[in-house]
């Protein structure tokens, strides 16, 4: 009886230690705290999906209005940095079914109109909406994930400001 209890305790510790070991393989410092399963993972997946859509929008806008490259390229790079930081937080167990949100851009973004002012206006609206949406999802998240999402939302809000400024000055 006593021996069985002990074995159970050992097993419980082993199971509990697996996420920590898995995180250790990639460097705990680089990854931060692995997200808990549950609502936090759903928020991460949703945010990753939104970043893919945003990146597709920028690529489509660049194709439609190459004159905007100097304005749009740095912003696109920042969205790619968001995506990388978000994906680093999502640890997918080996053998888990592939998630559409992790297999690359699911579909091309909406076709951007060609006039630069319209392209900038459309992207600015998308950035503002993304920032608002992220800010509403912070409650209940771990402190470090909440800070990351709040910082990404701040970045997106500043993108909207930059795009509106460039639109005004041509």
């Amino acid at each position: 009886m006593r021996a069985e209890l002990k074995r159970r305790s050992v097993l419980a510790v082993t199971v509990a230690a697996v996420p920590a070991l898995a995180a250790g393989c990639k460097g705990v410092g680089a990854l931060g705290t692995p997200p808990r399963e549950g609502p936090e993972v759903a928020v991460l997946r949703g945010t990753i999906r939104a970043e893919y859509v945003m990146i597709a929008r920028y690529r489509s806008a660049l194709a439609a209005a190459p004159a905007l490259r100097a304005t749009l390229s740095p912003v696109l790079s920042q969205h790619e940095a968001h995506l990388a930081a978000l994906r680093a937080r999502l640890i997918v167990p080996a053998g888990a079914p592939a998630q559409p949100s992790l297999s690359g851009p699911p579909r091309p973004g909406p076709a951007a109109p060609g006039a630069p002012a319209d392209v900038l206006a459309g992207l600015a609206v998308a950035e503002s909406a993304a920032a608002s949406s992220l800010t509403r999802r912070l409650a209940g998240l771990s402190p470090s994930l909440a800070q990351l999402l709040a910082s990404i939302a701040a970045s997106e809000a500043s993108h909207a400001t930059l795009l509106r400024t460039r639109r005004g000055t041509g």
Partner: protein
Amino acid sequence: MPWVNRATDAPASAALQAVLAAVNAAIYGYGVAGARLGPGPRAAAQQAWTELQAMRDDLASMLAARGAQPAAARAAYQLPFPVRSPHAAASLAGYLEDRLAAAYLGLVALEDPRLRSWGAHQAQACAVRATVWTGQTTAFPGLKP
């Protein structure tokens, strides 16, 4: 029970003190920047300075309500780089806003949903002002690269 409240509020008070310290540094910094800016940007710096004064008073009230003594401003602050031109002054304003955003992200780390939400909105406002000053954006305002 008062000791329970104090225990709950200790992280909030520390985070609010950090915001207050960043606000006090920014009040000093905007004063330095304003002296080097042309008339239009100087008016913007003065407005930011006035809003920061109001924020400092709000933060002092929030701390007092938690039984904490608001930390006093220092007489002077070390600037991150020399400020001898309008361009450097605008860069300083952008730097101050990023430091403010970092302090507001400290509120986002709290469990209190109201402080978390308020901190997130303030961090956004800081990032927007930084972009107005510098004409640039960053991927992670307020977070160390």
